[in-house]
């Protein structure tokens, strides 16, 4: 069993708070992605899990044991560094075997495990080579093998794919996921790339400015963002500000000249809200409607499988909608209606 429990973990530096009161529970064998822009605290959190940084407050528990003060060499975690951190003066085999030899395993067992792990990561036959003789993708796999060969309870990955080119990245994404599934190991994966997070992880923890915004699976995060930040960061959103009006069970936001039906869990009547709507949740009308916006200077951008309709709104700036590829603009004005929108309190932006 390998569960991770972060309870109220905080870490601050001279004038910034890197991580602010973070609480997160990671289940056994789960693949959790820490997702957010640079500076959001995800790497700091990961390094606290690994033991390289001591939190200012809060606790870190692995399988119920408090490891907050345990140094990295004694934690059941293994990390794959962003730069791979392969020791340049050792061969691939020595890099992987290093930890095994520290534990005084017999030579045959060391060789056995090293060879097997290289097969698991798909790299048989590079044992005698040096890191400088390997490609980026191969180095990455070696780093992975080195971490996994010790049979850690928790695997930590710090933006492992950021140094690879686009095509290789997609391939390695699947590889890492496959290996994780095969070994059934609890994994925490830090990335700023939402595509990676959405495609690889069981659950995603979105962070911004040190604060955990939302934890959920891909559908939760995408379809039911908990904060304006999540709505904006994941996929694309149009964000507009308005006032909330409750009329019984239905919620409507007065956004500029339109009254837009919104999902607004628990927000009070009259609240200043940010309304977010995804481009694919828009309908284009050729005539005005009470819940539609007039789009000025409309133009189309062709993406092949679909088109984007871009335009300006005098109050809200740039708006965009996704339209089918056959869509064409005529001379008449266009209006956008939101078929689905969420409302968040205006001042929150950062807290869930």
């Amino acid at each position: 069993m390998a569960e991770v429990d972060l309870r109220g973990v905080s870490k601050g530096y001279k004038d910034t708070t890197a991580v602010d009161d973070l609480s997160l529970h990671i289940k056994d064998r789960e693949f959790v992605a820490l997702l957010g822009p640079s500076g959001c605290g995800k790497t700091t959190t990961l390094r606290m899990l690994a033991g390289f940084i001591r939190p200012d407050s809060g606790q870190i528990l692995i399988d119920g044991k408090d490891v907050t003060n345990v140094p990295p060499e004694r934690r059941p975690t293994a990390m794959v560094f962003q730069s791979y951190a392969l020791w340049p003066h050792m061969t691939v085999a020595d890099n992987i075997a290093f930890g095994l030899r520290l534990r005084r395993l017999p030579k045959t067992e060391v060789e056995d495990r090293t060879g097997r792990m290289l097969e698991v990561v798909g790299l048989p036959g590079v044992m005698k080579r040096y890191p400088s003789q390997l490609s980026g993708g191969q180095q990455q796999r070696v780093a992975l093998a080195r971490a996994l060969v010790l049979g850690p309870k928790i695997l930590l990955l710090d933006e492992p794919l950021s140094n690879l080119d686009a095509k290789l990245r997609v391939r390695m994404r699947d590889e890492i996921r496959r290996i994780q599934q095969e070994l059934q190991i609890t994994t925490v994966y830090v990335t700023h790339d939402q595509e990676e997070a959405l495609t690889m992880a069981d659950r995603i923890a979105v962070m911004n400015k040190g604060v955990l915004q939302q934890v959920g699976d891909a559908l939760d995060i995408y379809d039911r963002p908990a904060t304006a930040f999540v709505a904006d960061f994941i996929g694309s959103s149009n964000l507009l500000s308005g006032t909330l009006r409750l009329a019984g069970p239905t919620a409507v936001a007065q956004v500029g000249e339109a009254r837009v039906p919104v999902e607004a869990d628990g927000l009070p009547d009259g609240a200043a809200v940010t309304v977010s709507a995804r481009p694919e949740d828009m309908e284009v009308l050729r005539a005005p409607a009470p819940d539609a916006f007039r789009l000025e200077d409309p133009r189309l951008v062709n993406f092949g499988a679909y088109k984007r309709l871009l335009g300006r709104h005098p109050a809200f700036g740039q708006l965009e909608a996704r339209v089918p590829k056959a869509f064409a603009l005529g001379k008449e004005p266009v209006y956008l209606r939101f078929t689905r929108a969420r409302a968040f309190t205006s001042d929150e932006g950062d807290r869930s």
Partner: protein
Amino acid sequence: MAVVTSARAVGRPRRLDRSRAAGVLLVLPSLLYLTVFVFIPVIKAFATSFTVRDRDDAGNYTYRVGLDNYNQLIASDTLRSNVIFTVFIAVASVSIVFVIAYVIALALRFGRGPSARFLGRIYIVPLFIPSVIASYAMITFLANHGFVDGILQAIGLPDGVFPKIVFDWKGIVITQVWLSLPFMTVLLSSVLLEISDSLIESARDVGASSWQIFRHIVLPLSAPGALIGVTFIFLGVIGGFTVPYLLGPNAPQMLGVSMVYYMTNYFEPYIASTQAVAIFLLSLVAAVYYVRQQFKREIR
């Protein structure tokens, strides 16, 4: 019909020629200087060492080429023990300063807190003290009835027990360590800086203790660069004059000192030159290694 072919069309582009000419011109003065004041003396030293001066029955000097000087170097007990003494001191000094400097460099690289910062300020001081002064300071510090002797006797050491350090090999080694410390530390510091933090962290992550990280990661990765510093110090100590002159015993002498004596006191430039070449040959391996490594690191 005449075909006019421009000479320029088939020649090299002018720009490159100008660059080469300028390059040669700019380097020439320094090259000239080195030839006259370094290369020629070195060649002369070699030539002189193979020149044997005989006195014939009429009292005239005759000169011939021969290995007699070298034979004398090996056969003479004094000279032979000088050679051994020189090598011994060089090896001892280099080993000790390496260890101390490495500790300082490690503290500077990985240490935090006031002690590390203090070390960072103080290790550079000997660099600014001329070797003559350092030698003299060490004499007053380490002599019998000097400062250290005084302190030890104040806490109970009986008189006369303090070992002879000044005018002894120990004095030379200690002073050379003192003088070489800044250089060695700076070099090791810059070498350690090249080892990125993530290499250390990943070793900790797989469970290595500080000692194991040092032995398996830091030391091997720092070795090539460290060796440059070691060879440089070795070359300096083996060819040193000031420190052994002021702090050394009368016998055996380091080759640098005996060389000068043969030159200025005995007026024997031939044996003196032979000793110069001997020092050079002793440090040849170090010199070659130094030049090759320095070259590899600097020229890309």
